[in-house]
């Protein structure tokens, strides 16, 4: 296992390889800033795929397409907060007319963000799939089949999850997605 590159090393390698407006700090894996929860003003970068480490803009998201997975990134020092899996975020673009009153103020141009950690047993929420009950696509945790509706504050619509996913309010800053406020709600699985 030790020979496999970790996500962190991949992200860091990508960061150093791509052009960045900020000067990257020499952050090692134990840097507490990498574990810090998403902060107001943080940007969001892809956490996987070909564009891993690159900043996300509204143009990267199409209505109804599967969510992208992201890490927060401190623009001041280019530190990506990938030191805790609890910081991973799901971002999806939907028709704003479908949002409920709680969701609308946290969205920007139909884009909403939520914690990627299932509130049931802490598994990653990975799937975008037609709901078990109804016709909308919803987030689904493939561990134990919990489903969350991002149009209604990621409330649980199927499965054993005890509560909704924590929400992450968004704004657009200089054309890029940014975090407007810390997580609303508890991040992570139930403990007992």
């Amino acid at each position, binding site marked *: 296992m030790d020979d496999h590159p970790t996500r962190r090393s991949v992200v860091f390698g990508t960061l150093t390889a791509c052009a960045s407006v900020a000067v990257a700090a020499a952050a090692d894996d134990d840097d507490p800033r990498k574990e810090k929860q998403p902060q107001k003003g943080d940007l969001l970068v892809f956490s996987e795929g070909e564009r891993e480490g690159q900043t996300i803009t509204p143009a990267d998201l199409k209505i109804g397409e599967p969510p992208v997975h992201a890490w927060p990134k401190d623009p001041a020092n280019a530190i990506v907060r990938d030191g805790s899996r609890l910081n991973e975020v799901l971002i999806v673009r939907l028709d704003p007319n479908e949002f409920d009153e709680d969701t609308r103020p946290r969205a920007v141009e139909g884009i909403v963000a939520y914690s990627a950690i299932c509130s049931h047993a802490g598994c990653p929420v*990975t799937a975008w799939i037609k709901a078990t009950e109804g016709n909308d696509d919803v987030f689904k945790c493939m561990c134990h089949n919990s489903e969350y509706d991002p149009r209604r504050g990621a409330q649980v619509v199927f499965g054993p999850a005890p509560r909704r996913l924590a929400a992450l309010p968004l704004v657009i800053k200089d054309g890029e997605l940014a975090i407007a406020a810390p997580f609303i709600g508890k991040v992570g699985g139930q403990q007992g």
Partner: protein
Amino acid sequence: MTIKSTTVTSKTVKQWLLSSSVALTCLAAPAAIAGPIESYSSVTSARLENPEPGNWMLYRRTYDGQGYSPLDQINTTNVKNLVPAWTFATGVVEGHEAPPLVNNGVMFITTPMGQVIALNAKTGDQYWRYKRELPEDLFQLHPTNRGVGLWQDKLYLATTDDHLVALDAKTGKVLWDKKVQDYKKGQYLTLMPLIVDGKVMVGGSGGEFGVRGYVAAYDAEDGKELWRTFTIPAEGEPGHDTWSGDDWKSGGGSAWMTGTYDKDTKTVYWGVGNAAPWPGGMHPGDNLYTSSVIALDPATGKIKTHFQYHQNDSWDWDEVDAPMLVDLQRDGRSFKSLIHPGRDAIFWVLERTPERINYVSGWNFVHTDVWKGIEPETGRPIVDPAHKPTLGKRVDFCPSLWGGKDWPSAAYSQKTRFVYVPANENFCGGFTGEKLPLVPGQLWLGTKAEDIGLTVRPGADHFGELQAWDPASGKKVWSHNFPKSQLFGSVTATAGDLVLVGGTNDRMFRAFHAKTGELLWEQKTNSGIMGMPVAYEVDGVQYIAVQSGWGVDAQRIQDALAKGNTGVEDNVPQGGVVWVFAVKQ
């Protein structure tokens, strides 16, 4: 990281009462909880090797893994009068898979999320409860636990955050706490440790995270690691040539169930899980020791010998349920056997000698389209490539990835000499193999999780099947079919000619006649039963105990069936309760 835990005893409550302004006269009755255990029977090698009939101190009661109780006070005649003697709500959801262990009137249960509860086995009163504080970022693919190991005056808990914890059996206080591996890399523990001569053995979970499996032993006294044997051989080790390149480093072979033990030859038999990732094309070769049984020397961890049930696993068919040790008479000769109704749908009968494991016989105990046959000399199954998952193409196969029988254990009755198998029939599955990068700590299946299917064979009239087999002849003696439910719970047999099992989505706990398969008694419980029934005795009275608490893979199958318009129950409530039954006097 500091691991915190909490133990609540009645002493704590009493101290609070005495130091508070609460008027003790308000308490109408004596406190129901008895406090720390005053009198506890130390668990020795002699007791584990020859347990008293009224106790259940190992995963399957005895080292041979037979899941058989010699108690016969509750029997085919009076089982119809079985009623609840007491119940106890654990307050925890998800899959309660542990047997209620009993040592001379003291019961220990474990729950998901790392709790251990000590109870009076006669009354159900709580002595103490240990609650592990799990890390906030823990990813629990299988939030469950299968019980504590018992040794001397200590208990040993293996946790989903990959620690081995020793507790004082009398108080629940933590004596030591050892990190086994790193939960952040997908390594975790769910099994009951196997304890042999003061060595606490555990096997790791994590086959779906691309780990390299192992069995390790710790000193019961101080938690010092004594040995660690990896189930995937490194360069220079026997069996390494069954792997290509660096595949062995992330080859799976997790060993997440308790082993069995032959005290005469001092050999531990441990089941090994699937190869990783699932499609065999991503790890060409036979892939020792995945989907195998390995014979270990408990003193050193050395692998004495092995038998691989099937090669180049591509179906997620862990063969982790350790084989039962049974003295068998077959074809006019007596021999010491290993019996393993496999996840791969083959009922395996093997011969164990101190030096080797020999193939004796194998047959399909549920429908499968994967195997064309078995080579008679070697016991190597002959695979049909049309039903072997591969990269870039959807492949379907029967049975499903949950197999003919998953981890829930079969039982062997020393009276009837039959093996009772919690089988699943008419399930198939399939997926498209996909080359995906390994990221430590993340699922690495070799397919997208949402692509995994569970399908039902056309014309199927049942799913779960409790089967009775004669291992000597290979003949099925009887079976009881469940038309609307899978069967996902361990089986226990007793000298009262009873076969006990839950495992169905109708929340029933059932007793069958061991000889005929006649349903003799059933009781609806609070939830579905995945756990193992046990039989025990206190003060001359026999009890039957089981935990009811649905979740994990039973729930996964349930969701898939419900979605598939099969007409099955789509809502099995969760929440754990210990049920204890006795004959109504």
